[in-house]
């Protein structure tokens, strides 16, 4: 199994086991055989409990490979302050609902009436502007995360 396949498999497995958290694997910058499983959105005060549960799951189901996975818990306060791109939608100010989409579509139609042409991409941007939604993006490494050279 290639490293990226293992990452996808491990993230899917941990994501399924812990649907309330957002889990992403990042390689240890000093050890290419180890991944840190960053577990975001853990409620403040539940860090130890979450760490033990994630660690148990990792040792039960992910330890039989050439890579090691170590849980790194990021509680909700830390996620909000330092990793907002990994917040779940339910923690954001406004979620994507039918009314938000309708609001954006109506706004778009109103502008179109003024003879402007809009693409689907424009509409997506408008919806995004209205709902303040950040989809999690995958970060390959800490270097990528902070835009610093490896």
């Amino acid at each position, binding site marked *: 199994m290639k490293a990226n396949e293992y990452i996808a498999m491990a993230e899917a497995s941990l994501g399924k086991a812990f649907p309330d958290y957002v889990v992403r694997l990042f390689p*240890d910058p000093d*050890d290419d055989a*180890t991944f*840190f499983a960053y577990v975001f959105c853990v409620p403040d005060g539940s860090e130890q409990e979450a760490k033990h549960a994630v660690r148990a799951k990792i040792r039960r189901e992910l330890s039989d490979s050439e890579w*090691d996975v170590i849980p*790194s818990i990021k509680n909700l306060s830390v996620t909000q302050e330092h990793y907002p791109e990994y917040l779940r939608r339910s923690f954001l100010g406004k979620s994507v609902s039918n009314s938000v989409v309708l609001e954006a579509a109506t706004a778009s139609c109103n502008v179109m009436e003024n003879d402007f042409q809009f693409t689907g991409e424009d509409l997506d941007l408008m919806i995004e502007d209205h709902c303040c939604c950040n989809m999690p993006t995958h970060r390959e490494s*800490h270097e990528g995360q902070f835009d610093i050279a490896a």
Partner: protein
Amino acid sequence: MSANYLNKVNTGWELSTRLHDQKDYNNSASRMYYAVFQAVLFYAIRKEKFNRETALKDKKNVHILMKRVVKEKMKDFKNAFDAYEDLRVLRNQADYDPEDVRQSDLNSGFINSVETIKNFFLKEATK
């Protein structure tokens, strides 16, 4: 050469303790990890004929080799391996993540567990 490793471990640990007292928890965690790492390395060199050149030639990562030594040798010590993993997380957080290591991360219970690992390998290495 071995005496130098022993000095490095002790100096690193003392520095980590001083940094902790000064409330510099990021650098304390980083120094603490390397003090323990060097204690394990000291043991591996003395007792398991660990050779850095061979490891490099075989493309074996030193950090993961030392982690396996801890896992194997400390299997009778409850939670020791967990503490070693937690220390790696704190070292990673201190050196690479945006948020700080907090005082609660480096509480006395955790430090005692980590010190047990360090002392175990120093004792085994000098037997």
